């Protein structure tokens, strides 16, 4: 198992660095370009949240975001961690409600995008530990058994 760690300042300017690092690892793992972009997107959304909701709203000692990336036997796993004040995550995030054109929501799409693009998403969050968004993308492996 290969492990990568990246620490970046909790600053919108540097979310791109996290996206690039994750893309580079995903590329080396062998994902196709579309999947690499999906992973990049999910990492970008998670880092945005870490900055906007995590670090942005808490005290002084939360000025960085940590990415933990591991290449596992069957998956690429990326965890984005902030030491912000945390929140209570829902089980699943739905598409925004676009039925009323006069009242279209301008936010609330991030976690839905992450859940759509990644194969497995686990959010752990607490006021003391902060938030970890752990996202997995399965590696394409040949099916050994089964008829599908």
């Amino acid at each position, binding site marked *: 198992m290969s492990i990568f760690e990246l620490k970046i300042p909790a600053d*919108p*300017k540097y*979310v*791109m660095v996290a*996206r690039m690092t994750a893309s580079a690892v995903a590329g080396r793992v062998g994902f196709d370009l579309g999947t690499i*972009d999906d992973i*990049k*997107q999910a990492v*970008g*959304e998670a880092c*945005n949240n870490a*900055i*906007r909701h995590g670090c942005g709203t808490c005290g002084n000692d939360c000025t960085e975001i940590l990415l933990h990336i591991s290449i596992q036997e069957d998956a690429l796993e990326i965890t984005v961690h902030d030491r912000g004040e945390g929140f209570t995550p829902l089980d699943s995030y739905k*598409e*925004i409600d*676009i039925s009323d*054109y*006069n009242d*279209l*929501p*301008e*936010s609330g*799409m*991030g976690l*839905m*995008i992450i859940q*759509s*693009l990644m194969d497995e998403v686990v959010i752990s969050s607490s006021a003391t530990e902060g938030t970890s968004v752990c996202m997995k993308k399965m590696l394409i492996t040949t099916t050994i058994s089964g008829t599908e």
Partner: protein
Amino acid sequence: MTGRINKDINVRKVNDKIAVVNFSGEMDLYSTPAAKEKLTELMDAGTFNIVVNMKHTMYIDSTALGMLVGAFKRARENNGELRLVSPSDRVQKLLELTRLVNVFNIDKTEDDAISKFNGEG
């Protein structure tokens, strides 16, 4: 705003009521404030028919999508419209994922979009 950001934003006034805006590169949490500023500037000056060309937008995150929705709403409230033009594959995918593809009118070319503003072109 630094020069670095603004070089990714290009605004062309078609007339008093219509403008075309090009966003190239990556539209994210960092670049979105400058993009929003441009759209706000246009609307503050009374231009509510806005074409957003996304041919060269290689990445867009949910904060940038939300900003576009905000501009769409303001344009609409002022009897104008914000139309998208030739979104890159990446942007198209995000528009579909968020179902915003059902909100924005999307055209192939800037001219197509301009010709569709009702009677204002």
